[in-house]
């Protein structure tokens, strides 16, 4: 259907260093916001810095925020994660809300690169009772059985054959109305 998965690496969902098992450690280490102080393309970034940045920094004290005003450059942000990965995003002509949205997106990610999840669950202990093998639930009687065996040699869950079913029906009709002639 869609081809977004064709070049996207795929894998199972995972987290660095069992994050969340003991305590949750926010994975965003630092974010660098580069912008121009006068160009129009950085307007959204400038508005964001003036209004929402302080609140963001207060709610995320584990992330260092660096601001780099650079003339004649389009705005961008580079996020660095605890596992060493970096992520670059161009913020050219973003609105203030878009900048906030993308920044909070960076915040909630671990540094593991975007990939197609094959499954949305992962476990290190896939089996508790043990993986099935052909000997599971086999009756121990097969160990000392002499073959051919009247029960074990036959197929299991055989069910009555058509002949046997007809004989059953015949016997039932016999019991219900013995006076009538039996159907052939």
């Amino acid at each position: 259907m869609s081809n977004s998965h064709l070049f996207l690496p795929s894998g199972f969902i995972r987290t660095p260093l069992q994050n969340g098992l003991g305590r949750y450690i926010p994975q965003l280490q630092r974010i660098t916001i580069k912008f121009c102080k006068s160009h129009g393309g950085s307007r959204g970034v400038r508005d964001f810095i003036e209004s929402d940045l302080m609140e963001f920094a207060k709610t995320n004290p584990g992330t260092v925020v660096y601001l780099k005003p650079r003339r004649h450059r389009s705005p961008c942000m580079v996020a660095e994660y605890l596992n060493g990965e970096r992520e670059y995003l161009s913020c050219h002509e973003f609105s203030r809300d878009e900048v906030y949205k993308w920044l909070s997106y960076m915040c909630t990610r671990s540094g593991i690169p975007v990939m197609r999840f094959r499954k949305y669950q992962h476990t290190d202990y896939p089996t508790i009772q043990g993986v099935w093998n052909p000997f599971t639930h086999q009756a121990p009687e097969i160990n000392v059985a002499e073959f051919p065996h009247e029960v074990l040699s036959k197929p299991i869950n055989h069910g009555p054959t058509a002949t046997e079913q007809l004989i059953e029906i015949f016997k039932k009709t016999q019991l219900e109305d013995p006076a009538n002639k039996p159907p052939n």
Partner: protein
Amino acid sequence: MVLDTVVYCSRLTAAVNVISKRNFKAHWVAPTLRELQRRKVIEEDRGGGPKIFHRSTFLEWNYDAEIFAFSNRLGEKFNDSSLRAALTHKSYIERETARLSDIGVESNLQFQDNEALAQKGGEIMSKFINGYLRAVFTQVPEELIRAMHDFLTSNPTLETVAKHIGLGDLMLCADFPCKTETYVKSFKAVVAALAESSGEERARIFVQDLVITQLYGQDVNELWNPVDPIGNLTAILKREGKAEPEFRLIRQAGSNSILAVYYVGVYSDKNFISEGAGESLEVAKEMAAREALKKFFHTEDSMRALPFGRQLKNIQSKIAQLENQPNVPLSEWISPKIMSAVH
């Protein structure tokens, strides 16, 4: 459509993940980038690999802010001096004093190194790990506790933990890229600094949350196994007053082929204890005895999940109590003296 692609930026030496958009690029952009990449590859081959720079050489770097963020990221409060001392290595101090004396400046630097802190941190970390293991694995002999402790305090494990909490950029050391021992020393010193700043309780929870969680997903029976499982099983059953273990062949398949499998069951007075499988009868016998021992130690594959985080609230006092009380060693475990040794 927005796709993630990897871009090689000429200024940054590491590969950067880009959230890219569709753009129309001029006809000269691709050839220019191709030529730059070609020259970069030549330079790197000449220089023996890509150049790497420490994060502190970048213009956007504020060590005080990084330290502040480090303690907040972990949710802990550190004394500033303790934390800075924990991150400063002797090699760094020596290099700085040598550099300053080369210039000719009087060097009365007030740096404190992390040797003592690392030593103390290693001891208290071992103590916390042993306490947790003995409180969770109550029926396990001390040899397995020691094996699990050695796995958790091994250099690869601690280096992974140290790298993933961000110590790589914060350490002040002379070697770059930093060696494994440097990471491990810094981490141990950070644990000691935390114990100094916030108390032993917080340091214990810190070690539980960061180091002991590395045991999750690891099969503890791969770390240690008794040498003579059949002998141990016989001794245990004898001291419990049960009959001798009897090994019976339960299942077999392919006995004349390479892929032979034998299932051997252990019975004591016709009561089933455990079964084990192997490619020959001797191997299957030993596996069955090992399974029986796993049942006694409560380390089977179906054992209870290890508790972490909030689940440890109720047993913290028990953990603290068992830090100095080793479990029973295997030789005593199988002997008649042990009838009432349950924590």
